[in-house]
């Protein structure tokens, strides 16, 4: 059901799994980057456009828990994978997850434009490695540019989120 049905050469229809919901896409060019599908077709505008060439990370989303730059990721390649965007992080009750919460508590943002991408990159890091070293944080977050220069706070927020996650797990919650 997730395979696109080819119709008229380059236009297909398909379903994609985004933030736990299956979304139907009308006729679409399978080469359309996921970024523009999210923003223009699905009204999920938290994922941002910064460069369009996989340089800045503003468009970072998770595909099966791995950070991916959606500006260069064709919708056709998503297949049956689970896409998570910034809109899909909070709990079903609306509660912020530990990464989002750390970002708010530490007042990380300046203009804020890069930050949904930064949050997603941090989320991917912590899903793969819940207790990263300083070096591992730096390396993982190097994929994302913050023009306003909030790196010191991003670093701090990733650490805060990691220790919050550790407490949550340790507490048997």
């Amino acid at each position, binding site marked *: 059901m997730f395979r696109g049905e080819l119709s008229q050469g380059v*236009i297909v229809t398909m379903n994609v799994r985004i933030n736990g919901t299956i979304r139907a896409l009308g006729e679409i*060019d399978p080469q*359309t*980057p996921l970024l*523009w599908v999210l*923003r*223009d*077709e699905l*009204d*999920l*505008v*938290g*994922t*941002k*456009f*910064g*460069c*369009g*060439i996989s*340089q*800045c990370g*503003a468009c970072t989303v998770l595909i099966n828990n791995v950070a991916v730059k959606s500006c260069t990721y064709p919708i056709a390649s998503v297949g049956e994978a689970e896409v998570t*965007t*910034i*809109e899909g*992080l*909070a709990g079903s009750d609306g509660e*912020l997850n530990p*990464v*989002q919460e750390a*970002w*708010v*508590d*530490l*007042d*990380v*943002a*300046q*203009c*804020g*434009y*890069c*930050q*949904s991408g930064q949050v997603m990159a941090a989320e991917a890091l912590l899903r793969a490695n819940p207790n990263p070293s300083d070096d591992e*944080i*730096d*390396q993982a*977050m*190097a994929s994302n*540019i*913050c*023009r*306003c*220069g*909030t*790196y*010191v*706070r*991003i*670093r701090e927020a990733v650490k805060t989120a990691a220790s919050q996650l550790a407490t949550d797990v340790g507490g048997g919650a």
Partner: protein
Amino acid sequence: MASLNYDGIAEIVDTITSAREELSGVGAPLRIVKLDRRQFLKMTGAVGGGLMLSFTAPKAIASKGASAFQPNGYVKIDDSGIVLYAKNPEIGQGVKTSLPMIVAEELDAAWEDVTVEQSRIDQAAYGMQFAGGSTAIPINWTALRRAGATARAMLVKAAANRWNVSVDSLTTENSEVIHASSGRRATYLELANEAAALDVPNGDSVPLKDPSDFRILGRRVTGVDNEALVRGEPLFGIDQTVQGMKYAVYQKCDAIGGKVKSANLEEIKAMSGVVDAFILEGNDNAWELLPGVAIVADSTWKVLQAKRALDIEWEETDASTDSWSDAIYKAEKLRHETGPRVVDTGNVDTAFENSVKQASGFYRYAFASHAQLEPQNCTASLKDGKLELWAPTQTPGAAIMSAARVVGIPPSSVTLHQKRCGGGFGRRLYNDFVCEASAIAKHVGIPVKLQWTREDDMAYDLYRAGGFHQMHGSVDENGKITGWRNRFITFTNDGSRPVSGGGISPSVFPGGLLENVRVEQTALEWKNRCAAWRAPGSNVFAFVVGSFLHELAHTAGRDHLEVLLEVLGEPRQLGPRGMHTGRAAGVVKLAAEKAGWGWELEKGRGMGVAFYYSHAGHIAEVADLSVSEDKKVRVHKVTVAADVGPIVNLSGAENQVQGSVVDGISTMFDLAVSFENGRIQQTNFDTYSMMRMPSAPEIDVHFIESDYPPTGLGEPAFPPLAPAVYNAIFAATGQRARTMPISEEGFTLA
């Protein structure tokens, strides 16, 4: 079409520059600033040694007796809660949080009870609404305090009426009025109806708090949009959608001044999803509407593909042939020739003749791009002669004027919805993208969202101009600096005055500090638009003068810190708008002390210090770094001491300083824009590569909260960074780098 006219922007630049200059010091003489007459800005001069500003308070929006209590344009209280309005564009400088904090303080609201909303753009009501020149806090400080205090006074009066007690017997705290002797309390929400029925008192008559009673100001407050940001809610211009909207791109000539001769419009129109494709002539104004080809389509992706398929033939007779290598060649010649003097105090020639030692150095810095992370965009809808705009702009008032001109309607027919800006840095002071969206919406007759690509953003930026300085200085037998000459080669767009940020005024360091100072200034003609870039002028002059001061200290065989403090001299105010040398020395000493200046450092490690005064901020920075054999630089720590008066939002203030340090390192190491044949050579972030997290140093920020009126922090922490790092690299290696970016001399970030 005539060749491009670069004058149109003067009004914006002058307005902001004069607002900034007027604010940039204490004890300014009483005068009316020459501002646009449409704007009701009134400034009054020094009272008791401090600068006081007042504005006409925005008029009450709700009429008396209405259920919402809305005594002015900043406060609204009704059953749903306390809403405070933020009047200025948010570009990352934090004003959507800090300005309402000032209102909340005097209102005596609990910050947790407050909801902040962006105000409407209405300069007749609010005075100037813009983001520029680090002016929001100093310009609005007193007016916002009065707005909050007025609302508070009315709520107190309402409670006094209700309980039949005197106003003096009441106090306020955490959004409540309290009658202590009877133990009665009423919340602001409960009192709103009654307060709304009262006359609004004159704001000048209401008492303001003693700063020692502040409960909100000076605290760490997280940004009011932070939660929406991490939820991915639509906030920015790029997130805007309107009913029936289509997506637009606009292709201009890569060499500015080029006009469209022909384009494959029929082919483009035949592409999937394309609604229309057409040529716009432009309006001859370099800052508004350049000639180009517009495409409108069903989706961003389709319109971007159509843009890629464009085949345009350009007429380039009047187009730019700017060449950076040519400018370097010319500057290399000019540096040996005397130029027109713009500053000439004392007698530099005699000073040089009588000196025991002299030093000279040729400094150069490249052009730079703003690279704000959200590419330019604007949504526009023109219906029945009324234009509606959703724009991430720093100057909404100017945007309305320009858009009205381009569309041919009166400004009163334009409504602009201010959108959060994904970075500004000066780029969004200029509204070319708003003009383009407006013209395209007019042509197609349907609402459009214009989207620039990153490549557009780089190619059609309004750059920070490059420049060249042949420096020469002298010291006497006591190692004192005696003479200073700065032979400056800059750029001009209009053929007469230097580009914004490209002119040296007498107050530029060490003006007013040294006896014998000469600045010569020659401008090279340049067609690519140059304009304000975070801390215009200061962002490059600080590098040159802060480095050369160190060169002279070294020539004299003396400690740089000691020479810097000697140059600053006795505590005094330098001219009405200049720096205060006592505040300057204060931050220099504090930064040096906190950084551990004077420690023995191992080989390859160095510390450098720099001070710069800009945008009314006194800021000193010390860089501590190591340089490897292969010139890899690891910046360990930057210590900053800042005196911008009292701090409004401690978290926001620190964030601005930390960001300025990172931006400073990023820019001085690797960021350069170059031109050949009129065209920019860099296209995107792969060739204009900003610093990433692994290179970010520890940043230690200290504020001296002096009693002077508070001033802005969006810009002044940027300029001292570069000279501090250049000086530290010299301390570590003995090599004096004089080129920015420093990667052109082989130094790269580890």
